[in-house]
């Protein structure tokens, strides 16, 4: 079973030491700017001149660039092909092949959309590369986010790999008893039932036991919870967060009353 259940890479950089909420605010601000900010080149600029330098500052540059491109390249390829050929209202033909013609308006639209998606995904990627999920959740809970909400988020991160392991164990058990999981589409679909049944019912039993376990450890106690990990927060960071919020408001204003 894998020890690594999140994107988190341990380093001792400035970015890692920042308060989780500061990083979360930064991620949201960058995404907001990429979608609503001024200028055609802004999203691409944010990725190249803000996110990439930040990732190297955090000591996770290689992971960051590699993972963000690997996640998004197939999508971008698809986006460029579709938009450059079929973008409605495209007039400026760059070149034609048989009945297909590549138009520059479509290319431009595809580039803008792609760079926006890139900022959206990579901002969160950077956040999770240099923020431990339990630090983020503890900090949000400390600031008054409901404990049940942060429990759901962190436990989902952990339970998904467990469910996968369980599904493959059931599959092994069923095929060792002669269930044929290969073959054509109909055969495969039919063999799905003996896999899904035990997985779902087994998980329901697990959920009841887990509920007992976390109740037994006082999850529903009325006290205000304390936190094992001390999460530092500084005055400059708080000011920085208010600054980010102001930037979002200014962008909103620019969108609503452009003049």
């Amino acid at each position, binding site marked *: *079973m*894998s*020890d690594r*259940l*999140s994107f988190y890479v341990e380093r001792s950089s400035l970015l890692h030491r920042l308060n989780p909420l500061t990083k979360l605010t930064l991620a949201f601000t960058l995404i907001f700017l990429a979608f609503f900010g001024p200028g055609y080149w802004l999203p691409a600029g944010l990725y190249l001149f803000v996110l990439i330098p930040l990732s190297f500052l955090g000591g996770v540059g290689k992971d960051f660039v590699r993972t963000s491109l690997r996640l998004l390249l197939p999508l971008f390829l698809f986006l460029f092909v579709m938009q450059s050929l079929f973008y409605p209202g495209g007039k400026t033909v760059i070149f034609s092949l048989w009945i297909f013609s590549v138009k520059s308006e479509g290319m431009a639209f595809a580039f803008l959309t792609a760079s926006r998606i890139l900022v959206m995904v990579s901002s969160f990627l950077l956040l999770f590369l240099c923020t*431990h*999920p*339990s630090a983020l*959740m503890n900090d949000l809970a400390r600031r008054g986010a409901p404990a049940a909400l*942060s*429990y759901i988020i*962190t*436990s989902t991160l*952990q*339970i998904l*790999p*467990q469910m996968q392991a369980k599904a493959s164990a059931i599959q092994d058990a069923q095929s060792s008893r002669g269930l044929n999981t290969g073959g054509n589409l109909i055969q495969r679909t039919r063999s799905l039932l003996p896999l899904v049944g035990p997985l779902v019912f087994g998980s329901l039993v*697990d959920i009841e*036991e*887990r*509920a*007992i*376990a*976390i*109740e*037994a*450890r*006082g*999850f*529903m*106690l*009325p*006290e*205000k*919870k*304390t*936190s*094992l*990990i*001390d999460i530092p927060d500084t005055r400059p960071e708080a000011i920085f967060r208010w600054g980010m919020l102001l930037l979002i408001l200014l962008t909103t204003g620019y969108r609503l009353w452009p003049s």
Partner: protein
Amino acid sequence: MAIIEMRNLTYHYPLAETPALHGIDLEVQQGEFLAVVGANGSGKSSLCYALSGFVPHFFKGKLEGQLNIAGIDTHQSGLMDFVRRVGLVFQNPFNQISGSKFSVYEEIAFGLENLAVPPTEMRARIDAMLDLTGIRDLADRSPYALSGGQQQRLALASILVMQPQVLILDEPTSQLDPIGSREVFQVIKDLSRQGMTIVMAEHKIEWVAEFADRMLVLSQGEIIGNGKPSEILSLPQLPEHGVGISRYTTVARLAQKEGLWPSDQALPVTLTEAVAGFQEALG
């Protein structure tokens, strides 16, 4: 004064026709180590859940009779009153992991965070627990990357760190090998000597005979035996109720048929008793 007092306790799970517990009368003194044995479905787990408040506060259903534990009455208290006083460790260690923590160390902290223990005290208590349960070297691992036995120790540590007055254990050593089981039994025995009250449902009769102060035998939700392990385990009717007797008792019983074990002497339960008995009988 007894820390656990049950008077004529009867419990039906929701929609169940037959009671899971029927007319249970039980007293346990503070610091006592009580073992509960019985076949599957005899009511061991239901008794554990009743003592820790999950019956009826979590499972609902119908609970009749009296139960007082660590100063609270189950009819007048909520589950969270139990949580502060009574610890529960159950069988499947995998499902006792909170799922929201990424290391063993943080996992043990989960209960303390809920109890609002300050961080410095938290660390001291967790460190003590890591040593007590022998999982110090696993502190930084993911709770899910542990073996069943290691997870079982973690489940025990996670509850013990909350310092309950009464500890309820439902087959806490099912995933442990004999050496690991012995270590865990030893830890629990020491805790009971220090004044913690222990109630443990367990299949491993030989261990129970060696460590527990008293033994309770359940069959179909009723008590059919209650006394010192040596008295209980030499009861001839035990196998009818699905309770395995220890291999030492089996050997001595066979020896008795062959005339190698004096018929006036009680049958042995542990290895030491068996060795002593045979040495005496065979000269």
